[in-house]
Structure formats: C-alpha cells, structure tokens
C-alpha cells in the first residue's frame, strides 16, 4: 500500500513540488507499479548483486594538466551570474 504521505515524502526527497491532484494520481500509479515489482521477492538472498556488467576497472589516465573550460564557457548557460560566479538561492537562513 502506498499512501499520499509516502508520495509527498519522496517528492520532498527528490526536490519536486507536486500538487494535490498529482499526489493522488501518482499514489495510485506507484501502487500498481510497486506491486508489479513484487515478483523480485522470490529471488533468493544468496544471489550476488551485479553492480557492473563488464569486469572492467576504472580507466586511469596520466595525471597531466590540461586546459579545461574557460570561465566564459562555464558560465555561458547559467540563468544568473555575477562577476564570474554562478548566482544561486540562499543556503543559510
């Protein structure tokens, strides 16, 4: 069972504001989808999980300095910028 409170809880975790109508719609859908996922309950706990499909390790490269993005390029898509910085919302109240 999924409650409307559960839906609001994950919406807060995911930083997504949702309306009352959305919350009720998602609640019903989540219940259907999550109960479909219950088929996985029959898998034994003994089975090892696969985190990565190929047995490759992280690819390392030489630790050499390279030219990165210049400041103008890095800031090019920012909705707000000031004196070479991104402008974001206040974090400390």
């Amino acid at each position, binding site marked *: 069972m999924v409650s409307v409170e559960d839906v609001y809880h994950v919406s807060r975790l995911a930083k997504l504001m949702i309306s009352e109508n959305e919350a009720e719609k998602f609640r019903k859908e989540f219940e259907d989808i999550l109960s479909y996922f219950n088929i*996985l309950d029959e898998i034994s706990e003994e089975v090892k999980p696969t985190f990565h499909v190929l047995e490759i390790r992280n690819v390392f490269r030489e630790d050499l300095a390279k030219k990165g993005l210049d400041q103008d390029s890095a800031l090019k898509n920012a909705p707000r910028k000031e004196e070479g910085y991104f402008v974001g919302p206040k974090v400390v109240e």
Partner: protein
Amino acid sequence: MKLAEWRKLVEENGCLEAISKMLERIEKSKLNAYITVCKDKSLQKAEEYDKSKIKGRLAGVPVAVKDNITTKGIRTTCASKMLSNYVPVFDAHVVERLKAEGAIIIGKTNMDEFGMGTTTETSYFGVVRNPYDLNRVAGGSSGGSSAVLANDEAVLALGSDTGGSIRCPASFCGVYGLKPTYGLVSRFGLIPYANSLEQIGPMANSIEDLILLLEVIAGKDERDSTNAGRSFEFREVENLRIGVVKNMSAEEQIMDRFFDALNGFEYEEIELPSLKYALSAYYIIAMSEASSNLARYDGVRYGFSVPELTSWSDYFSRVRAEGFGEEVKRRIMLGSYALSAGYYGKYYLKALKARTLIIEDFRNAFAKFDVLVSPTMPTLPFRIGELKDPLTMYKMDVNTVPVNLAGLPALNIPLGFIKGLPVGMQVIGNYFEESKLISFAKKLEAK
C-alpha cells in the same frame, strides 16, 4: 535512402543541391522528427564538400543526432523544458568522430524526455509521427532518429538505447538499429539517464551503412571511465548457431512473420527462465539511476529557472516541478523511493540480484548458440494516445530490456510490413560479437 543512393545523388547534382532538397523535405515534413535543424551550417558544409574541402568516410553525408547527445554550439534539449535553451560548449565523443570523418550534422532529433518513454509522447516538443501512418507513434525513445531515416530526412542517424530506445523505434519505422555492447561506444557527451544501462548506437537504412557508422563511432575514449578501449571492424562470420528465445514473444501475426523469416535457417528453441524478472529489475535500476543523475538540474548552472530566488529547497523544488514533465517526475520519485531507507534491500538490491541471474541465463545460452533471436516489439506501432497507463507502457519493453541489464549487443532487423506497418526482429549476441549479429542480418537479407 541508403548511403549509396545519396552518394549517387551527390555525384549527379552536387552536395549543395542534394542537401537543399533534403532541407526542403524536412521543412515540409509532418513527422515532427527534428527539434533543431542545422540549416545554415549544413548548407555551408555542403558547399565546402563541393569545393573538395571535406574528406573522410562520411564526407558530405547528412547525419541526424539524437537530442540527448551534446553538440557544441547547437542547442541540445533532451526534449525537456528543463534544457530547452541549453547550448553545449563541447562536443560528445561520437560527434567529434562524425566531424572528423566529414559528416554533415543536419539536425537534432526528437525523443522522449530524457529518453524516458517508448513512444516519444513524453517529449516537451510533441510526439513524433510514424512515417507509415501519421496517427501512430514512431516508437521511442529515439523516435526522431528512426523517423528521419524512413522519410529521407537524413541518411544516417545516432540514437541511444537504455532499455530498447534504439531497437523499438527502428522496429516501428522499418530501419536497422544497433545497441552496441556496453563500453564499445564512448558515452562522453551523452546526457545521462541510466549510466549502467545505456549506449549510443548507429541507425541506418542498410546493414552496410550501419557497419560504417559503427566503425566510425566505436573506439577508445579516456573521458568515459566505462569505455572498453576497443575499436570495431566488421568481419563476416559463418555457420552461426541460432537460438530462438521462446519466452520473448509477440502477438500472433508478428510471430508468423518472424518464423517465416527464419524459414530455411536451422535453429533451436531456448527458454531463459530469469527473463520474468527483467522488466522489474530494469525499471528499478533505471529509475534509481535517473533519480541520482537528474539531481543535477537545479536551475543554477544551466537549464530552466524560475524568476524568484527563494530559499534553496523551495527554489530547486519549483524549478524541477516546472522544468520536468510527468514521466520524468514519476521515474525520479520511484527511483528515490527504491533507494530510500527501508526499501533499498527490497527493490534496488533485489534488482541487482536479478541482473546476476539474467546474465547467467545469457551466459548459458551463448555456450550453445552464437546468436539469439526474437521479435523486437510485442505489437505493431501503437496509435498516438493508445497507451494511457504507465505500467502498460513499461510492459512494451519486455523483449528489449534484458540485453541492457546484461550489457550485451542487440540489433533490430526490419522484416517488412504487416497491414502497411513495419515489423522487426531482434538479434542478440555475446559481448563484443557485433560481427555475428551483422553477419546474421546479411544472411537474412540475402535470403
């Protein structure tokens, strides 16, 4: 249009004339397959080609690129309001490779928002229509890339495939589309949805064209830490042992066509018992990875923003509420749920265990067979608006998601038409055995 036909057109009329005609065709098109058309740049490149200034294996060839692959200076939206004004400052590895071979990037193709869908109906820019029936979908999520190929709006195309997003639209539009082995093609510059599942892959109107495009885009790239460092060169393989996967099925008329196509080939049937877990495992993993990947959209560094800078939590929540479409929100929230305290063991960890079982099933199958075949999609292309409920939509990916969980390569081969609508066969191979899939496709074509 096949590459050979394009080359003939160019030889007869010049590249500028051929590109101009194609751009006119795109302008008149009813398919809604492009989000951005690179008109001026394409004309300029065509002119340069005519002056013999461009060399390479794809010189003067118009290639369409899915709009989740970054192109320097060309808007790249992921078909989302969130990125509707995003102009990348770098090229994806595959785009660098296309440019190095002289390709003309003619446009950026429409798709499901962030690749999340099977029909392109979740695109912020509207649905892509099927070239064979405008009331039906072109498939998804790379629906724009398959539609432009079928309608002569490009000669080659790139798509990306997280759970069938190349093979489904290839099947619905009657073109070839390959999801390569995980790690064969660099994901540098592919805007991520579910990193452990997705690959960029080639789409084309002939198997020869697909080989060429794969040879161009495969290869080493140190900017993708999961890149296998391999290149690809096609080698014909003979005496393929064929297995028909019994529990990858489709509606009756498609099964009839599927077995008709196999007529004259020797094959055996095989059942992969763990496939019953594939859809659940796939959606849990994809949603979990999406919830983490899409956390980057905060309205600060790039992307959509709202006018008032309120508190950080309120600001991010409103940016994301307005910038993301419904399916994207659904998957982010379900992913957050699956990873949240108390549910990790029940959902995410169980999905990774299912992944192990599915990989074992495939390993056993490839001890006996070189290629495994099935219908690509369980039905013919859907009518626009036909699939209303999300779970019903997810179930349409039942035949395509297993290979993404295992990291294997799989190819859609067009099998002609039923009632005027395209049908496709999926052929699956072992790791890095793309040549076997292609050899099988050639034998099927020659029959």
